[in-house]
């Protein structure tokens, strides 16, 4: 058991840190797509109830999915 503090930012350490960040990005991306579908699908559902036309649910879901995916690309996909 090594109980020394890895305060030095050695290469392996930063590599692993990058791995953790990748993990966070994966969950973040998933969250964005889910939120997109939830928010705009929800709006679509409300509009559909109001106008008595179920087409708006689908439109909302697709819009939300598109916007969520766009955000994923914007946040995580552009650099490099």
């Amino acid at each position: 058991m090594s109980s020394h503090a890895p305060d030095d930012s050695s290469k392996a350490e930063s590599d692993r840190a990058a791995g953790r960040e990748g993990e966070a990005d994966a969950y973040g991306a998933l969250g964005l797509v889910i939120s997109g579908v939830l928010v705009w699908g929800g709006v679509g559902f409300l509009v559909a109830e109001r106008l008595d036309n179920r087409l708006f649910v689908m439109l909302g879901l697709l819009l939300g999915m598109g916007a969520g995916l766009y955000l994923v690309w914007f946040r995580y996909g552009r650099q490099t």
Partner: protein
Amino acid sequence: MSSSVLAVEGEGFVSPGPGTFVYPPAFGEGSLVTKPMLIVILGSLAVAVFFFLAARRAAMVPGKTQFVGESLYGFVRNSIALEAIGKPGLKYVPYLATVFFFLATLNISGILPLVQFPATSKIAIPLFLAVISCVIFNVIGIKREGLGGYFKHMMFPSGIPWPVYILLAPIEFVSTIIIRPLTLTLRLTFNMFAGHLVLVLFILGGEYLVFEYGGVVGIAAGTVALLGSLVLTAFEGFVQLLQAYVFTLLSALYIGGALQDEH
């Protein structure tokens, strides 16, 4: 209702369902405490007492308890706080360590002989911890950037034409404030829920096959199921530790995200 009638008549195996997670009062009718609550209380006490004993009379040359306590605490400090947040994360090690060992203990109670119920499969416990984590990282962000700056940063990333914000800002808001704690909660709760259900199914099913169904087929299949339940118990132990780790790690990553600038 009808399924319980069937069970009484002994007409077949009734597979365990969500009802498995509902416990009657532990000390007879009218008492408020149930088995999951007892597990939470005793589990918290066990963690607190252990770390109290480990930290009491801390010596340069650690005794056995202090060594184990320091190694466990060091794991959270080095592999979670330092890696996910970096040096500023040292401030949050006490919180992260508390969450990790609290959750690990309550998860492991699912395979602890005689206890055998993961208290974290009750949604209130993960939900409460997730809400605390959520409050912490939001407060950190608001403190660092100010209320307006924080939400501006979160909801309006620069570099997007303004009409698109109408589409994107609500998504960012919901994703950070609602989806993050919700996924923390659900990931942990239903990993524990499903794991416990599978174990109960294998054990009760195996018992039924051996003792009720009987015959060569029943005994052979039941034995396989009971042996399988041992393997699954080991696997479940792995999942329980992993999920406690994932919950803590993600909390740390959210805190780390609030502490540093967007790149």
